[in-house]
Structures are given as C-alpha cells and as structure tokens.
C-alpha cells in the first residue's frame, strides 16, 4: 500500500512539472457572442479587409464580437478550427484538402484569393517569365513545396528533372545574393520586399499558368455549419463589407493595418504595395458580379484537377456555398 501511495505522489508531482500542468483546466472558453477568426499568418495587410470590418464595426453592428488571432510559422490553422477554439480559419484549398483527408470535417465556405498567390520570382538579368524558363535554373524553395513545383511542371510540360531545387528558408536573400536563379514564393511578400529595396523582380504568377488552387479560403467545421450558421453568416457578411472597402482604397487599408498593430513591425509603404498587389488575386469579374468571397463551379472543377496533381484528391463536397448564398439572399 505504501509503495502505491509513493508512486502516486511521484506521478502527480511529475505531472505538475510537465505538460499536464499547463493543460489542466485550460479550456479556452469564449464569452457568448464572441468568435475567433484564426488568421493564417502574422498580422499584416494580407488580412486588411478583416481589420476594416473590425474597426468600422461591421461585426459589432450585427451583435457579433470577432477576435482576430494571428498565425505564425509554428501555428497551423486547422487545430484551433477543429477544436472549436476558432469558428473560422483562413486556410488554403490544398491545406484544407489534406486536413479533410486526415479526417477533419472541414468545408470551404468562402474564398478570399481566387487566384493562388504562388509565384516564381527572379531578377531581370536572368528572368523566369514562363514555366519553360525554369529548365536549367536553380530554384530556391522550401522542400515541402516540391509537389507545387511538380504540379506546375506537369501542367505546362516542363521537365521537372531539369530544375535544380535548392532548399532555402522563406527569404529573398539567396536570390539577391546570387545563390539561386529564382524563388518559389508568394507574389505578395518577397517580391514586394525586393521592390521596396529598389530591386525590380520579375514575378511569374503560377495561377496564370494553370495552377488553380484557391488560397486564403475560409474554412469551418460541418458542426459549425449545422449549429452556428448565424455566427458564420454574420462573420462572412462583415468580411465581405470589409473587403469591399479594402478594394476601394487599399492605401487606407494599409494605414489602418499599421495603426492597429504598432508592435507588428510593419512598414507602411511596404504594406501599401502589398495591399495593391493582392487586389488582382482577390477581385475579378466573378467577385464584381457576386461579391467578395464567391467561387464558381468552374473554379471548383479547376481546383479539383490541380489538387489531384498535388496528390490531394477531393470532390466538390469540400466546398459549401450555402453561407454565401444565404448572405446574398438576405
């Protein structure tokens, strides 16, 4: 009996030092009427429309209190959405497809970036203007993105083996320093940083060459779609109004972002340029007609095709337009 007691005390004491202590009684409960929107990255004008919605009261007008949670390099979006900590997360079609394949009950309920922001950035002296130019080049990218490059090659009949992949951090320095010929990156960040430094990068948007993967998608669980429809509708309604304002004046969105997050280390001019650069990715004839966030059946079909190339087979069930339709009906 004594032995037993000792073990139990040791057990509890150790637990107190370990992870258990941090997890005991720590269910992040939110006040009624408050929902979390889990962003996919650190605060920046990338989420400018949401900041406008927040600051102009597009959510509070509807009685909804939205808290915007930043992401980071070690902050995947899917866990908080699955666990209900966040009502909606900003993901991307390929990430969502992977999560669904792992059993997460997600639906894409709206799409911020109709066009995927992935791009190949290079310098004018040695430019990559179309996929064919990649052959014989050294490309710097995260190895994790290899399927993305492979898909682009397949879509454009480029010999993948003729490209030398150099694993790099997500950083423009290797290109500028001449360690690589081009970079796989988002059109809206590293090229913007290079432009701000007085360089004049050539940016080849992969979406212009058949790489159809929606990005900055709004995801929610099936449970939320069934039981929290009201909040979802209110949240997206606010988003749509916020992003409409953003479209009208990107400079104002950039200024608001810098003002709202003085500790984020944001540079106003960089934010203004980034805000402008993401307009063509987010707004198109489709959004002009249906409003921000809309996606067509045609877009879904293209995504299914590209996702299959990325080894992430999905069906149209991944998408759910009912929230957007409800907003437009109302």
């Amino acid at each position, binding site marked *: 009996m004594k032995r037993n007691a000792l*073990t139990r*005390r*040791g*057990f509890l*004491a*150790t*637990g*107190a*030092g370990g*992870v258990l*202590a*941090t*997890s*005991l009684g*720590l*269910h*992040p409960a939110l006040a009624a009427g408050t929902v*979390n929107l889990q962003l996919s990255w*650190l*605060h920046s004008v990338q989420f400018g429309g949401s900041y406008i919605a927040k600051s102009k009261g597009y959510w509070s007008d509807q009685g909804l209190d939205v808290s915007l*949670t*930043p*992401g*980071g*390099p*070690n902050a*995947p979006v*899917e*866990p908080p959405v*699955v*666990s209900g*900590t966040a009502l909606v997360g900003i993901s991307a079609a390929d*990430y969502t497809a*992977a*999560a669904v394949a*792992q*059993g*997460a009950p997600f639906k894409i309920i709206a799409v911020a970036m109709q066009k995927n922001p992935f791009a190949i950035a290079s310098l004018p002296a040695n430019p990559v203007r179309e996929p064919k130019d990649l052959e014989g080049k050294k490309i710097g990218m995260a*190895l*994790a993105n290899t399927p993305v490059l492979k898909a682009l090659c397949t879509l454009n009949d480029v010999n993948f083996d003729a490209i030398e992949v150099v*694993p790099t*951090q997500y*950083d*423009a*320095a*290797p290109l500028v*320093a*001449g360690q690589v010929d081009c970079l796989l990156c988002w059109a809206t960040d590293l090229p*913007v*940083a290079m432009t*701000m*430094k007085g360089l004049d990068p050539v940016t080849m948007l992969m979406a212009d060459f058949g790489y159809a993967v929606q990005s900055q998608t709004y995801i929610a669980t099936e449970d939320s779609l069934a039981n929290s429809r009201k909040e979802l509708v209110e949240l997206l309604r606010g988003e749509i109004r916020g992003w409409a304002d953003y479209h009208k004046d990107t400079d104002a969105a950039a200024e608001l972002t810098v003002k709202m*997050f*003085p*500790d*984020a*280390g*944001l*540079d106003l001019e*960089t934010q203004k340029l980034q805000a402008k650069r993401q307009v063509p990715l987010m707004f198109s004839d489709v959004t002009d007609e249906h409003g921000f966030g809309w996606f067509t059946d045609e877009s879904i079909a293209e995504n299914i095709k590209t996702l299959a190339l990325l080894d992430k087979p999905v069906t149209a069930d991944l998408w759910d337009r009912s929230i957007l339709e409800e907003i437009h009906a109302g």
Partner: protein
Amino acid sequence: MILSPARWRRPRTDWLRSIATALVALIAWEALARALAGTYLIAGPLEIASYLSDHAGLILRATGWTALAAAGGYVIGNLTAIALAAVAILIPGAARLISSLALIVFCLPLVATGPILRVLWGPGLGPQVTLAALAVYFTTFLPLQVGLRAAPPNWFDLVRSYGRGGWTALVEVRAMAALPYLIAGLQIAAPAAFLGALVGEFTGAERGMGVLTIRAMRSLDVAGTWSLATIAAAVSMLAHAGIGWLWRRLDDAPPPLILASLPDARTDRRWATRLNLILVVLVVIALWWLSMEFAGLNRFFAKRPDDIWAFLVTASGAADHRTTLFAALGQTLSLALPGYALGLALGLGLAIALLMLPALARAIMPLAVALRAIPIVITAPLVVVAMGRGATGTITITAVMTFFPTFIACYQGLKRTPAALIDLFESYAATRWERLTLVQFPAMLPAFFSAARMAVPAAILATTTAEWLATGHGIGGLMALTASTSDYGMLWSSVVLLALVAVAAYAAIERIERAVLRRYGAEQLVR
C-alpha cells in the same frame, strides 16, 4: 567535490583585455559586413546601431513583451524544478521516475508542442510562458539533483543524531549545499528561457521579438534581422551575467560546474532498472493519454498513444509511415551526430589550448561565456547564411550549440584541478603536458561528461530547428511539413521517436560516463 579556485574575482586588466578583444571582433564584423554589402547577408555594427536608434520604441516594446514571457516561464520553470528535486529527495523511491519523466518532457521538440499549447491557451502569452518554462526546468533540475546530495554524509548523520528526519536534512543541510548548484542552473536557464519565449511567439503571437524576427527575415530587412539577433543576444548575456553578479554578491565561491551524474547504488540490480523502465513507459503513456483527455483535445491533431500505435504498426500504410519516418530520422542523425561530435571535440580542444595559453584565455573566456547565451533560433539563420544550406550549415549549427557549453565546462573543469595535485607536479617540475594529461584532463572528465549529457537534447534541438527553419530536410523538416499537410499522426510519431532517441542517447552517454568515471573519478562522483 566542489573546489574553489583561490581567486575568482578577475583583476581589472582582464576586463580591459576582454574589451579589447570585443573591439577587435566588432571591427572585423564591420569590415566583413562592408565587404559583403549588397548581398543582404550581414549587417555591421554601425548599421545595427542606426537601425536600433530609428526603431527604438518598437524594439523596446517587443523586447519587453518577450522578456516578460521569458521571466514568467523562468520563474515557473525553476520553481517546478525546485519542487521536483525536493520531491525526488524526500521520496527516494520516486527519484528515478521523476528524473526519467523530466528528461522525456525536456526532449519533446518545440515544433510539436507549440501548436498544441496555442490551442490550449488561446491568444496571449500562454504558449510563450509555457515553452520558456519547459526550456528551463531541466537545466535547473539536473544540477539541483546533484547539489542536494552534495553534502558530506556526516552532516546527515549529525541531523539524524538529533533524531530529526529527511525534512530537517533538506532544509538545514541539503538546501544550503545545493545553493551553488541552483545558481549554476539558474544561470544557464536565463538564456534558455528567452529562447523558449521566442519560439513560443512562432505559434501565433501578437507581438514580441519572435514576431519581428520572422517579419524582418521575410522582408529582406538584414539590418532588422541582425539588430534583433543582437538584442536577443544582449538580453540573454545580461541575464546570464546578472545572475552571476548576484551570486558573487551573496557568496565568494563561484557556482560549481562539476556536475557528475547521480551514482546509482542499484546498477547491479538489473531487474530494478527494468522495472523502472516499464514504470516510466506506463506513466508516460498514462500522462499522455490523461492530459489529452483532460484538456479535451481533438484527436485530429492531439493524437493518443493508440493512434500512434495504429499509425506505425497496425494501420494499412504503417510500413510506409515507418519508412518515411526512419529515413527522415536517419537524415537527421547523419547530421546531428557529426555536429555533436565536432562540437564536443572543438569545445574540449579549445579548452585545452586556452589552458596552455593563459593570456589568451583571459581575453576570450568572458566572450565565450557571453556567446553561450545567444539563443539558437537567432543563430540558426545566421549560421545558415554563412555556411550554406547543405549539410555543412546544419552540422555547424549543431556543433556551435554543443561547442559553447562543452568548452566552458571543460575549461572550468581543467582549471578546477585540486591545487594540491598541481603542487605535487610542480614539486617535480613536471611539464605542462604532463600536468595536462596526468592530472588536469582526468580531473576535467566529470565536467566534460556532464556537458556532453546536457548537450544531447541541445544538439537534437539544434539540428531539428535548422531543418525546420532552414533546410527542410530530416525529421525537423518532416515535422514542419506535417503541420501543413495536417499529417498529425506523422508529427506525433516523430515526436515519440525523437524523444526516444534523445533519451537513449542521454542514457548511453551516462553509461559511458559511469564507466569512465569509475576508472577516473571514483572520488569525484558526487554522493
């Protein structure tokens, strides 16, 4: 045994020499930065100074937030360590279990714990504080374990002779005997807490130095990156030096560095060892399961032991999973092992070289102590920039992480050879080489092994962090990838495997240590 050198306050000339060394280093740095201008790789001291003065407010606030989280974690982690060590002393039967669990938790990779902590804590400082606490508790717990036993047996006999028990012995004897060891732990913990807080910010923080670092690296802001690295290094060094200073105010003796592992009275009782192993495994599985269930974490990302068993053994793709996992582990180990060995060899080598060249040592030591304090997350990208993204870069980072603690421990160990033994050699006018090989080197071995043991988790952390942040190879890269593909089965399997490898490596070093010290340090094993 703790041996205090006769003089521990350094004379002023040594400080002047250190300042001179630092100046030379600064000038070389500036020159290198100027030579590489336009490549966006290195920012010189002047550029950093101007950046800091332009962004003083921002940097100050960010440093404040990160330091706040680090301080919180530092206090919590160290109090936990003290409580654990006290329990391990008061309940001797639980000591081994507690040590094993403490080691396992310490070996959990940051990449994996971060997202879970964020889900648990929600927005705010929670994950940063927790990761800081996790980063410090072990380096305090370990020396304390030794320190609490570092009193002569007759002191305990004294307590017993007055009919008092373990508690009195803990308060009256052990606590005081352990104090220098506690300080040594607290000193190492200060930079570690800062590192934990920085990495914690990668899990989605609103503000802090980690946030700014990510931003600066992505916007080609070399001055910003280097400024942040400089500040992080400075804060870590100040914390490290501050605790040292505080200790010198309290006591004249320097904190001990000879941290031998606990002599195990029951090594010959193999069944006890096996029983403990089984107990540890059971307790770990139970803790893992219970904590997940208690916190109500979704199985999608918070896998349970049976999920991992299925993923690696019974599921249809299990063989493929194992292949992927072990291939990645092999890749990681093929870099971690050479880096670790290189770090140990360089640390030992430089310590010996400096012992032979005392004038140089006096100039370099304070710098080395300071450099030890620079957090890995900051150094990793810089080393990769300098050494390239291939194997060399990763090996270098691992070697650097292993090098500093080994170097300092070995140097102090060499210097702490009992004065009487040095006198003996002097009386025969023995050569410096004889003195080194016959006395100082064997006398240093306990310090070397304690550093080698502590460097195991550090080396694995360094390699996986480099893979995670820079190369994308190996198990670090695999873990980063699994987060984007929601392959949490793979992530948890990696965590389990890495923790197992770390614990096994630690135990292996401990075995070698015991064997060597049985030969070379019977008296030096702390009772």
